[in-house]
């Protein structure tokens, strides 16, 4: 889905910045006493002048290595953290005011933290949400029925949460987060620890929610499959800065990923001379198979060279994994950054 630019954005951040101030704890009793009297303060820039806007109904992936500022950004958007400077408007609210009228229009799901209550059936948690979000009985029943059907969890609603499996629990978690019909859903690593089947279930459910309800979704994940399956747009944050913001295809184009080529011949070939060619690298020869990486624009030329080596049995050309693209991007940036 493409951003709807004629509508005002649901999230608008301008020069969003967050610095942490912390004092250094000195070791030992003497150190603790000294810290009481005189503290050494240090600041760390977690998010650095980030600007972006997200339209209603978009599904955006927030990517970046650990400690890059993803979670801090998510926490500022959901109102858990104050911003240090810059403007932030979500649904026409300043999130950190945490106005009840704002909070009831958003939801946050954290893959590592359960928000369901352990000892009681999920239905009890849902009923609690009903009162917490002031839902009418009709509205509540309709939402529960719809979500339970989409997630196929009707049979789990009256089971103690502690007795459900990890995958089932994540479904219930999503259900609890969506029962009040939020307009924006923040997801922090929603598929972490799930098996392949459960991951696929969660993804298709999220896609359905986006389509059926027009829910705006902002998702952080380490699993690139999540991003590829759900997001038409990605934002990459590294060292607190927004490094990239655009479509997934654009990312692939910008990163200029190399083509992965694998050629299989009828009999073993000598391919060492390929190494010297412009735009070719990582040549690997094992018997009749040759593997190499080629620059995008040189791909045609490389194919031509390969056909000259001998009779081909099989030729396979693929784009690099999105995961590799990301690794590449971060690597390139940090080497650039470290250069004097």
């Amino acid at each position, binding site marked *: 889905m493409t951003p709807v630019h004629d509508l005002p954005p649901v999230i608008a951040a301008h020069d969003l910045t967050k610095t942490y*101030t912390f004092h250094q704890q000195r070791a030992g009793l003497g150190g603790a006493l000294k810290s009481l009297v005189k503290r050494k303060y240090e600041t760390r820039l977690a998010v650095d002048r980030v600007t972006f806007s997200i339209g209603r109904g978009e599904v955006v992936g927030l990517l970046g290595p650990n400690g890059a500022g993803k979670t801090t950004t998510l926490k500022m958007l959901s109102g858990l953290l104050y911003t240090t400077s810059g403007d932030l408007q979500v649904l026409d609210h300043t999130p950190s005011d945490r106005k*009840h*009228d704002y909070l*009831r229009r958003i939801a946050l799901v954290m893959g590592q933290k359960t928000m369901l209550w352990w000892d009681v059936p999920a239905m009890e948690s849902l009923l609690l949400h009903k009162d*917490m979000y002031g839902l009418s009985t009709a509205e509540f029943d309709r939402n529960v029925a719809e979500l339970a059907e989409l997630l196929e969890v009707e049979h789990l609603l009256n089971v103690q949460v502690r007795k459900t499996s990890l995958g089932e629990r994540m479904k219930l978690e999503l259900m609890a987060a969506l029962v009040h019909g939020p307009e924006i859903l923040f997801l922090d690593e929603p598929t972490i620890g799930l098996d392949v089947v459960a991951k696929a279930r969660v993804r298709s459910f999220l896609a359905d929610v986006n389509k059926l309800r027009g829910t705006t979704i902002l998702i952080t994940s380490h699993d690139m499959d999540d991003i590829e399956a759900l997001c038409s747009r990605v934002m990459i944050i590294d060292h607190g800065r927004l490094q990239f913001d655009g479509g997934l295809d654009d990312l692939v184009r910008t990163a200029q990923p190399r083509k992965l080529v694998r050629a299989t011949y009828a009999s073993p070939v000598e391919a060492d001379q390929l190494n010297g060619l412009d735009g070719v690298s990582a040549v690997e020869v094992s018997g009749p198979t040759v593997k190499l990486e080629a620059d995008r624009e040189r791909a045609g030329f490389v194919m031509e060279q390969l056909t000259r080596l001998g009779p081909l049995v099989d030729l396979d050309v693929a784009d690099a994994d999105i995961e590799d693209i990301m690794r590449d991007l971060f690597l390139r940036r940090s080497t650039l950054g470290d250069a004097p």
Partner: protein
Amino acid sequence: MSTLDRTWWHKQWRHLRLWRRFFAQAVVRETHFRAHFLTTLLVGLVQLGLGIVPTLLLFGFTAELHGWSRAEVIALVGVFQIVTGLMATFVAPNLNRMTTYLTEGELDGVLLRPVSSQFYLTLRWINVAELTNVASGVAVLVIGLVQADLSPGAGQIVQAVVLVGTGLVLLTAVWSAMSFLAFWLQSVNPIGFVFLNLMEAGRYPLVFFPVAVRTFLTFAFPVAFATTFPVRALAGDLGWGTVGVGVGLAVVAMLLVRLLWRRGLLTYSSASS
């Protein structure tokens, strides 16, 4: 876009409904743990008996102490049991996990809800089984009153109930304030322990303590409002003035705790990572 609560009253109503749900959920939980119910009941009864032992021994050596007879002190032990029972039911299960809320990041999940986070953190969990101690406390109170030959009128009962209420609010405020230190300190787990041990002073009439300690137990750690004053109200020797002071103090205490909570949240929201 319509707002969540049309008026301030709607907001209070929504919170009240939510609290009712907390209670219903606690009852459901309790039915899953029947052994817990029984142990709580038994331990409560034994502790009640134990709490009366020093009083009985004390009045074995004297018929009356600073104007209090044995029966009146027993009535006071009953009130103490009611108050501690109510605290153990509605407040203790929450404040005892303050450190967990702050260090395990559970507070984040609360802050995202359209409810007062202080309300939620102070009243979310209810230990229904402890209500049995309230019941046994009422029984002891009645026994004490009958033995003391006291038959309080409606006005006196109202005074006593209001005073117990203010006492509860004041004690909860003190305990909350102690727990909210968790925003600035590493761990406040043992603080509940200090609180409960100080509470023990409420087993005895205020006049049994030296004057300096009396002031402490009235204004700093106001357990006097929860036990001594209600019993004196039931005995009919307390004016509405004390009740007024109690209500006033309770309001001030609530405002102060609210302020402390806000300060704490400010630290939390700008420092947590």
